């Protein structure tokens, strides 16, 4: 089940709310099976491609499937069913079929799961048209985005959850969170010195960096996109046009989400000129995630790395 336990509470409420909602996972809570029936809460063999394909068929015929993939690494197991089929059916059928389905998975936490089971692959899914990608930066947003994902009828959603969101979870706020529309960035902090765009687990580190810099009189604007597809490009571009400095912060590789956000921003008239080269990345290196905590230490977007990047950009003319 979910690394972020509050998501299970939200999902249980949503199962209660909508009789068409079904849950597929390799492990399911016995209490859910009792309460909602084994036909809606399906314990499946370890067959993620079949589970996602079945979710698509169920979605196309009127149900709202949620598949718990467990780890984000397992998203690579289901690429054909998710990308070639679920993400394409609405387009391919020219709008006559819909595939409202949700895939949840955990990205990275300090869990020492190593190169195979720990990664932030959401950047890959910014290149697969038809999939929407949510990467919340707080437990409250995770709950709000999950509610939106299971209620809307638009198509497949990948919800990537950083296990570390549990460390800063305001349980009451998270449970009370209303559905959050996709494509609306959250302005975590206002400022003019630089625009910091942080994703998922990196939002907390960037928030601490912003606090530290504010104590020195450097006020950055911190934006959490919350969804990478659709991306709130107008909000990001407006901020960058005002500050003229951009720091992209992610616990995944720079070639993933950061590179694609930057490319999209540079396409907005005026942004390239406003930035004038004042761009920095705080991201994981382009290698797999190692297991030893000593080796892994340099893979995290720490507050220290973020403040160093901001200082470097603000020191430049």
């Amino acid at each position, binding site marked *: 089940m979910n690394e972020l336990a509050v998501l299970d509470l939200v999902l249980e409420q949503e199962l209660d709310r909508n009789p*068409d909602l*079904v849950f597929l996972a390799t492990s399911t809570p016995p209490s859910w099976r009792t309460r909602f029936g084994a*036909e*809606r809460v*399906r314990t*499946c*063999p370890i*067959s993620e*491609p*079949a*589970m*996602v*394909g*079945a*979710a*698509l*068929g*169920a*979605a*196309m*015929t*009127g*149900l709202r*499937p949620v598949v718990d993939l467990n780890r984000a690494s397992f998203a690579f197991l289901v690429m*054909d*069913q998710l990308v*070639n*089929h679920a993400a394409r*059916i*609405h*387009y*391919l*059928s*020219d*709008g*006559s*079929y*819909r595939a*409202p389905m949700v895939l949840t998975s955990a990205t990275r936490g300090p869990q020492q799961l190593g190169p195979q089971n720990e990664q932030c692959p959401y950047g890959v899914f910014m290149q697969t*048209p*038809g999939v*929407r990608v949510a990467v919340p930066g707080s437990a409250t947003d995770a709950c709000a985005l999950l509610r939106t994902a299971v209620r*809307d*009828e*638009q*198509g*497949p959603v990948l919800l990537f959850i950083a296990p570390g969101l549990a460390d800063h979870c305001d349980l009451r706020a998270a449970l009370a969170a209303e559905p959050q529309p996709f494509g609306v960035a959250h302005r975590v902090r206002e400022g003019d010195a630089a625009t910091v765009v942080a994703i998922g687990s990196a939002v907390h580190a960037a928030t601490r960096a912003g606090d530290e810099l504010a104590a020195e009189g450097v006020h950055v604007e911190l934006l959490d996109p919350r969804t990478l597809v659709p991306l709130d490009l107008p909000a990001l571009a407006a901020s960058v046009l005002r500050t003229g400095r951009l720091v992209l912060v992610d616990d995944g590789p720079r070639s993933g989400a950061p590179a694609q956000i930057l490319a999209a921003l540079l396409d907005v008239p005026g942004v390239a000129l406003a930035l004038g080269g004042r761009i920095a990345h705080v991201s994981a290196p382009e290698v797999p995630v190692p297991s030893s905590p000593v080796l892994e230490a340099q893979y995290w977007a720490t507050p220290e790395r973020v403040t160093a990047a901001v200082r470097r950009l603000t020191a430049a003319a």
Partner: protein
Amino acid sequence: MALALPADPAVSPMDPPQDGGLDLVAAYKAMVLIRAYEERILQARTDREVIGPVHPYIGQEAVAVGVCAALQPRDHLVSHYRGHGHALARGVDLDALTAELFGRADGLCGGKAAALVSDPATHLLLSSGIVGAGIPVAAGAAMTSQVRRDGAVAVVFFGEGALGAGVVHETLTLAVAQRLPLILVCENNGYQGATRTEEVYPETSVARIAEGHRMPVHRVDGNDTLAVHAAAAASVAVARAGQGPAFIEASTYLTRFHLQFDRPSGERRPAEELDGWLARDPLDALRGHLLAAGTAPDLLDALHSEAERRVEAAVAFARTSPWPAPELALTNLWAGTP
């Protein structure tokens, strides 16, 4: 290089042919339409009117028609890239299908799908371009029937090449364990693309693979419309009653080999093998049944001319349909988008 493998000694015997209440004239009419359509579409591809590849269904008509005759409108269907036959047997609109193959605005999917059509009106979910990939999707439709308790079943067509794909085995296990109302129809034509199945599989029949997943299996002569229909009707009845899935292995053969782009594709199969199957043409076989039962030959001949007339009208419709507006390429990414 063909591995020397024994014939399939322990594979379960084929179901004996029997009359499952099939309307033989209606079945013959449907098969004649598919035959006329596929021959015409191949010509239209040679004439560069049809876009993309054409995978003709000629020779396998008895499978699509025998199975679809056992279905009800509420049932769901999943096809694949050799799917015109399934679509026509299911009653997909001939004009819209043809315009789609021509890439035109009035096509079933607005020109976005070509042969890989979807059609909600006939519950045709998709025609996957990826071998085996539609099978779990059909399983999902069967899950919906189970949740809704609406008595619908899901049917998926695939070639024996699909049994090479891992997701198919996953789905067989899941479907049996969850007793899904799912009917898997394997059109075993002995080839996977240009590769003979015995070169890459332990045996040419896939029945024992399905049995290994504890799936009830019917083996039938896929060129015998009555046998196919009887197996389908029995499987549908079991699935509708909530007693789980079934696997039908229909042995058949492609009269026109495999795939055409700009030019008709060459024949590469052994001549004696091809001749043997041509002598067992499914339309001839059903025509024989009908004549033996006293049906007037004139009636059957009239079905041929009517099919040719309908197909020609569909081609004319597709030709006059406009090309889609280029900006429509950006539409319908997901629901709610323009």
